[in-house]
């Protein structure tokens, strides 16, 4: 398995504060890497460094074997797409117009969209169940539908790598399940590589091929989902006790944070 993304000794300081400290890991084709960790651990920052939003980092990020700093923004955007954390801001575009922004890196300055662009948009909308919403303005959608539209736009970008920041947080159960299913399909059926920040440990463990835990900007755990689902490991990461409960429907036990429900 060749490494599609390779991160070596990635460090970032923002206004004198170390946010990321010597983070290294890599992701191969078709891998699903979940990034977990407590609030403020640097998960979002890590994704933003990978997405090219933060640029003042030290270390190396290689995408498709090439130093990310030498890739043009357009080339990078043909290799990876990004879904940010859901934000409350409204946006005047329709679902279809949003999905069309995903085609930007594939168009040259003076060409308009071709059949393959329309096909990519259609298939992304279909994959996310948003075909019926295509003409709807984003402002008129629920939080869950809007998140689907943003995922659709990232899929329409047709990249090998998907970077997602808490794609299913704040969504209701149905939409959570749908997002999980879409991402899993994108990974297993289409062979895309996914790096996703997950807030919910059970989602992270259920989806991924590898779990990475950040704490205060450093990688404190990197291993299989089964190893991550260990209550001792989790206690070290989050600083709070966990209990694990075997689940008949899942290969791995369900993890519940202790204390809250007593």
């Amino acid at each position, binding site marked *: 398995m060749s490494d599609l993304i390779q991160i070596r000794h990635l460090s970032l300081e923002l*206004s004198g504060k170390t946010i990321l400290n010597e983070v290294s890991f890599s992701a191969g084709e078709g891998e699903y890497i979940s990034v977990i960790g407590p609030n403020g651990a640097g998960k979002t920052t890590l994704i933003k460094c990978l*997405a090219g939003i933060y640029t003042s980092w030290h270390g190396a990020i290689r995408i498709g074997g090439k130093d990310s700093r030498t890739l043009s*923004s357009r080339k990078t955007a043909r290799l*990876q797409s*990004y879904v*940010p954390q859901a934000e409350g801001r409204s946006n*005047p*575009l329709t679902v279809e*117009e949003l999905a069309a922004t995903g085609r930007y890196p594939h168009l040259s300055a003076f060409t308009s969209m071709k059949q393959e662009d329309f096909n990519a948009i259609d298939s992304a909308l279909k994959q996310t169940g948003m075909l019926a919403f295509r003409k709807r303005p984003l402002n008129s959608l629920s939080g869950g539908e809007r998140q689907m539209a943003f995922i659709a736009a990232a899929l329409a970008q047709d990249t090998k790598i998907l970077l997602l920041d808490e794609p299913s947080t704040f969504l209701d159960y149905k939409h959570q399940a749908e997002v999980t299913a879409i991402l899993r399909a994108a990974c297993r059926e289409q062979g895309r590589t996914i790096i996703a920040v997950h807030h919910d440990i059970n989602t992270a463990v259920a989806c991924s091929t590898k779990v990475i835990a950040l704490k205060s900007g450093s990688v404190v755990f990197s291993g299989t989902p089964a190893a991550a689902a260990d209550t001792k490991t989790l206690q070290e990461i989050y600083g709070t006790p966990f209990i694990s409960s075997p689940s008949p429907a899942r290969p791995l036990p369900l993890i519940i944070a202790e204390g809250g429900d007593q």
Partner: protein
Amino acid sequence: MKPLHKLILLAVLTLGALTAAPLLGMEFIPLNAGGQEREILMGIRLPRVLCAFAAGAMLSLSGMSFQALFRNPLATPFTLGVSSGAALGAALFIRLGIAVSFLGISGTSAAAFLGALLSIVIVYGLTKLKGGFSTPTLLLSGIAISFFFSSLILFVQYLSGLSHSFRIIHWMMGTLTTAGYTQLINLLPFLLSGAAILGLLTRELNIFLIGEDLAISRGVHTARVKKLVFLAASLMVGGVTAVCGPIGFIGMMSPHICRLVFGADHRILTPASFLFGGLFLVLCDTLTRIISGFTSGAELPVGVLTALLGGPFFIILLLNRKGSLEL
């Protein structure tokens, strides 16, 4: 009706208004008039109407581009301090009282452009210094710069003699009284270059609507797009301010009205804002000329009228934060 059809309709309406507007004024002059009336029609009213169109179009386009870039319905050349910068540049130049021109571009226009560019560079630099490029920092520094430059203009005026001072005051109200063919030729290079730059950036502006982070991840060279938009806006705001003074609120109202009618896609919105901004100022100017016919004779500056319309519009926009006027 499809947005493109609406755009064609707007173009037809604009052409109609450009034809009819010169006929109206203190006195109606028919198209087939001769002698002195023809002289007024072709020599005074026509260039003035064309100037109004060019100025309105430029203000509207710069407002549209700022609103898209900062995803803020209240971002305009005024709120970002660009107009004040341009006004300061021009006021300083008027105070100096030199008349130079280069390649048909008057010294006042060049000074206003430099002032506009200066305020953008300061605002941009301030926000960059704070790390990142956050919209709140940008808007706040824009407003601060705007106040600061406005005070400097008052200071320049305080130092000026009566005649300069009167010129500055009259011009600060936003006026098209002096607009003739010379002024039109002065506006054209700014109009053409600014509109051309923005016309090439419509796709990028669309993507800026979903936020800068996502724009980067879509492969937009955001730093370059921002610089180009700043350049285009400085050219246009500087060009207009030097000739007509700071005419307020068109840069805010016109793009919003267009967004309501034509939607948010900049491939349509850009030509629509161009036409509508021009049309809007032509109508306002024609109205001031007609009103002036009924008053004592001193002409009502068009900036007064646009501000009278713009004030209430601004309040509606504020009250409607969650409503349809939002960007």
